[in-house]
């Protein structure tokens, strides 16, 4: 994966988040405050606006730029969480010109690590962590079996989707949905959904290569 692939990935995320703004906001209505789609779209529109200066950057700088941009434009819970995730992801691939399969897994691990470090959520609390954790496990397993980048990211995305769906029956204990206690049950977590979208975009970019 090159720095051009990273731009392709981010571009795809920006497209998908724009297309899913209303969907994500709708998911955030019954158990949140109806802004997750708007928040994510605002953040990735800002990232998109920086592409002209980003194409020449190395991968780590690109990812860190995404992180700081998200921190500066998203707000809410998702801004610091995804912001920290991208900052740490950038840190994990410092000075790499091209990402190998294991670099990509390391990047995903740092990404999830950033979210956990910031948000202190564990698996089962009905957050982004519930999409990202199984995704990371799947990616690691594929890597151990010597799978291709395309396969690793595809399996990670598939696991994220499963994880996202698994948030539906969960009772939230972190984030806004936790205020609803039992009433949070039966709704899919918006943050887990945006996490899945990011991983799906990654898999798509990697399969296109």
């Amino acid at each position, binding site marked *: 994966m090159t720095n051009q692939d990273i731009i392709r990935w981010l571009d795809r995320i920006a497209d998908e988040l724009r297309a899913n703004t*209303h969907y994500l*906001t*709708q998911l955030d*209505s*019954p*158990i*949140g*405050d*109806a*802004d997750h789609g*708007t*928040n994510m779209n*605002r953040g990735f529109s800002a990232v998109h606006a920086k592409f002209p200066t980003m194409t020449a950057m190395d991968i780590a700088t690109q990812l860190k730029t995404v992180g700081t941009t998200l*921190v*500066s*434009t*998203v*707000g*809410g*819970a*998702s*801004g*610091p*969480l995804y912001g920290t995730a991208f900052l740490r992801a950038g840190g994990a691939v410092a000075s790499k010109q091209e990402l190998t399969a294991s670099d990509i897994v390391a990047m995903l691990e740092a990404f999830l690590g950033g979210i956990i470090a*910031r*948000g202190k959520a564990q698996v089962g609390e009905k957050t982004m962590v519930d999409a990202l954790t199984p995704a990371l496990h799947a990616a690691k397993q594929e890597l151990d079996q010597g799978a291709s980048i395309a396969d690793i990211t595809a399996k990670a995305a598939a696991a994220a989707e499963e994880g996202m769906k698994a948030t539906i029956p969960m009772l939230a*204990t*972190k*984030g*806004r949905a*936790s*205020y*609803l*206690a039992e*009433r949070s049950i039966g709704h899919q977590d918006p943050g887990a959904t945006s996490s899945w979208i990011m991983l799906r975009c990654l898999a798509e970019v990697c399969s296109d290569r």
Partner: protein
Amino acid sequence: MKKLINKVEDVVNDSLAGMGAAHANLLRVDLESQIVVRKNAPVQSKVGILSGGGSGHEPMHGGYVGIGMLDAACPGAIFTSPVPDQMLAATRAVNGQAGVLHIIKNYTGDVLNFEMAAELAELDGIKIESVVTNDDVAVQDSLYTAGRRGVGVTVLLEKIVGGLAETGAPLEQVAALARKVNSHGRSMGMALTACTVPAAGEPTFDLSEDEMEIGIGIHGEPGRRRLKLASAAQITEMLATPIIEDLELKAGEQVLAFVNGMGGTPLIELYIIYDSLNRILTGKNIRIVRNLIGNYITSLEMAGCSITLLRLDDEITRYWDAPVYTPALRWGM
């Protein structure tokens, strides 16, 4: 969606522009940094009092910037915590070399963004204390959850702490009073209707003609329970009882009673709630010696109300009574 707005994406900016134009004697609005700052900030040797949070809770927080309350406010997008950049810009703008107090309502987003801002401000060499309000008894408190939300107490705290800061008290004392006020207050809210986030374009939940939500926050979210509509007296009882129990208010104690409208409920109804609350408290020999009734911490155009009770002592009462001059609260000057 029926609102007096121009473009959906300009709601916060247009409103801030109006606010800046209307209250130029008290504050200035920096649209680029998205902050509202006391006109003569920074006041040298005074602790800077800063708060912020999503927009949609007007007059909170921008309406509390002025003399004797907030030195700055950072308004986020509607119902969305502001970003660290805003908080940092505001912190710098109000730093009069005596440190800055960050007043944060307990929501994951607000806490995380303020946390990042405080880290950045401290790199600048600015002394920061942070106080997180978490007064909502509708939410169970626990070490393992996001905890209680910050709601009505935030308004009272900003006033009281702003009064102390105006005297030139040091940061530690100001922060200590803030923590005391937070620990002395509890709130609970209810909704008759949902509200519509402009960018979402549709109500955050559906509620039929004979239903209400009890235990809501201030972000248009549903509450803890959906119940059949009840009388004002019954609703007041449902809101006041958990507060009184949680605060362990005893006969003979003195409180400030705050009946807050969620934005779409007219004053005539808030006074009906106040009447019930007064009866309940008087019945328990708890004395309301101060009160505040009106729309002070809102959820856009939601119909509904919240009740906050604050246990008073001499110190808290003194700084509540201290002069204040902001767009939304003014007395003594």
